[in-house]
């Protein structure tokens, strides 16, 4: 189902219908020429490929985005307070708002960091929050919080530049929010928590799926792009190894690799990547890590259930943006509801990401549902169930025709002294009609997001 057309949409289509559609091919030419890639491994082979792009942008009015902005600021503030509390006083657990065992069983909870408070007490610096717009009540709903290594911001940034060159009429004729400030938001966040030294973006390397983004954000934010072995830890201080062997002190690291690969001395000793000793430097307060180690507990799909409670607990406010109705089989009452209604629910494995481990009850056979119930019963903490949200489709121009596709929206929220929401985001659409999975790793494409006013 499509959202009702607004005057802003009408203005877009008025200009779109006057444009030379042959020029749409230029977007792909641009992405190929500039290797705007999202790489993947298939059958053991490294494949360089660009993300599918659709020329029709998602349009959000400035007024509507203001509510999203406010709601996301509130949510990320609460999530930061939750993480700081959980790893220090743990009042939220002691007061029974979140069950202790539920937190401690989260795979992203790292007990080794209990008692440690990072620079400026900020833990979730650069965040990607996934939302959809519910067609039932026209409200935006939060689907997922990504507080570890959310990717994707470089794609709308790159494509907007190209869009302005190929079809300047839209940008001359419409009042579209500019978006070039995102790298400076990241630079501001790194600078705010920096403990003294240069800022670096830490990439696993050229064969990572998002290497393009790492390189792009380092260049645009003015940080140095480094691979793990290009950092060295001496006396619990982190140094950048310059080409001539000189060591330059590092004050903040925007890490683009998962916690378990960050430091082989601390986490996985078999890891070939990572910076040995960086955790010691971090715990000594000699370097800031963005995002903080141990954030996985807050973007756990089970902990998501408690975020509205966190907002009320820490901020004393009602949540501005709502969660999708979620049930935890961990609680007996919820489990009963899930088992009675499994065929209409979406069941998610909390340990999975990228659209993996998501099962739609309406697509399952009776036998599969019975099997799933057995699995859920044996390990209730591993799953959550959600009501299926009929979120709006977006109009897409695919294969030279206009079609409707399900689309979500990843908003980027960056924390420095203040919490700021980027006035853009990554709109991801499913390639097939009716598919609810829009993730890039599931073959989904992306489109630009225009925050506009008349």
């Amino acid at each position: 189902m499509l959202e009702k057309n607004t005057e802003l949409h009408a203005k877009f289509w008025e200009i779109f219908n006057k444009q030379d559609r042959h020029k749409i091919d230029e977007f792909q030419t641009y992405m190929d020429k500039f290797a705007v890639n999202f790489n993947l491994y298939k059958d053991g082979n490294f494949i360089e490929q660009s993300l599918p792009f659709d020329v029709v942008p998602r349009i959000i009015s400035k007024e509507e985005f203001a509510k999203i902005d406010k709601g996301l600021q509130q949510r990320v503030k609460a999530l930061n307070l939750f993480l700081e509390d959980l790893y220090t006083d743990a009042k939220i657990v002691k007061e029974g708002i979140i069950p202790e065992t539920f937190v401690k069983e989260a795979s992203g909870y790292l007990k080794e960091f209990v008692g440690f408070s990072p620079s400026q007490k900020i833990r979730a610096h650069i965040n990607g929050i996934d939302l959809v717009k519910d067609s039932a009540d026209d409200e935006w709903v939060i689907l997922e919080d990504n507080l570890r290594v959310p990717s994707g911001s470089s794609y709308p940034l790159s494509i907007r530049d190209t869009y302005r060159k190929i079809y300047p009429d839209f940008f001359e004729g419409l009042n579209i929010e500019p978006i070039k400030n995102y790298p400076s938001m990241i630079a501001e966040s790194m600078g705010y928590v920096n403990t003294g030294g240069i800022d670096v973006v830490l990439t696993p390397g050229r064969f990572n799926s998002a290497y393009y983004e790492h390189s792009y954000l380092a260049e645009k934010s003015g940080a140095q792009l480094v691979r793990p072995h290009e950092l060295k830890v001496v006396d619990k201080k982190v140094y950048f190894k310059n080409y001539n062997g000189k060591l330059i002190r590092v004050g903040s690291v925007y890490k683009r690799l998962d916690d378990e690969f960050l430091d082989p001395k601390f986490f996985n000793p078999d890891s070939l990547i990572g910076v040995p000793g960086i955790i010691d430097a971090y715990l000594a307060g000699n370097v800031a890590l963005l995002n903080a180690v141990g954030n996985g507990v807050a973007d756990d799909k089970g902990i998501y259930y408690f975020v509205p409670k966190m907002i009320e607990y820490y901020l004393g406010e009602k949540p501005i943006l709502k969660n999708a109705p979620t049930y935890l089989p961990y609680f007996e009452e919820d489990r009963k509801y899930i088992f009675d209604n499994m065929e209409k629910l979406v069941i998610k494995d909390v340990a999975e990401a990228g659209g993996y481990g998501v099962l739609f009850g309406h697509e399952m056979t009776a036998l599969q549902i019975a099997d799933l119930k057995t699995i859920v019963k044996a390990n209730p903490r591993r799953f959550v169930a959600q009501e299926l949200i009929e979120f709006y489709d977006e109009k897409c121009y695919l294969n030279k025709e206009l079609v409707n596709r399900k689309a979500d929206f990843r908003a980027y929220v960056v924390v420095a002294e203040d919490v700021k929401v980027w006035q853009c985001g990554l709109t991801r659409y499913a390639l097939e009609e009716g598919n609810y999975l829009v993730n890039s790793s599931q073959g989904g494409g992306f489109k630009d997001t225009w925050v506009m006013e008349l």
Partner: protein
Amino acid sequence: MDQLVTANVATNLYWLGRNLERANQTLYKISKTYDLIVDVDRDAGVKLYKTFDIELKYDNAVDFLHQAILGEHSANILETTANARESAIISRHRIDSEAFGEIIELHALFDSLVKSDLEIDYKLIDQAQSLISEIWGALSKREHTNKSDLFFRMGKLVEEADFRLRFNKDAAITDTVIQEIDAIVKVLSEDDAPANQTQSQSSDESDLITLINTKIHQVIVE
């Protein structure tokens, strides 16, 4: 503060310069040699590749193009441009974006030959050389603004010196190329002491290249 560059990026910028210049110089030689093979000297290609220590076999002028560009040997243009592309991707945050795009296009030009089975003709060489000229143009806009650009420039000059020595070009001009390499080495090594001057007349070709490479290894500390 001086610009910071990791050894990996410095090395890749250096090799990007070398591989682009290698492709450029080799394409120029291929173009001239193709012309000779058509109706002047059928063995001109064999002689050219002997200079590269490669035994090249071909049936006719068009086959010479095919073997020179895609043949299984170390001076293969497809591989040279693939190496340039790889270096560009690794160091893309230090390269002019237009130049980066042209480098990707340059490799795609040769890569498409493998995928399409099209016959190679001389126009491809013109096209590739135009692209390389555009890359130089885009890069020269900022060639001396950052230290990282000097690694690229140094790679280009080292390859140029290599070709000049290999083909016995005017020694005086070769010396000016080498002097520029020495000057770059001095800036990059941040050493106040005057750099040792390298003279093309003073040694044979392989000694000179070894000497230049030693200096470069002293600049980039892995």
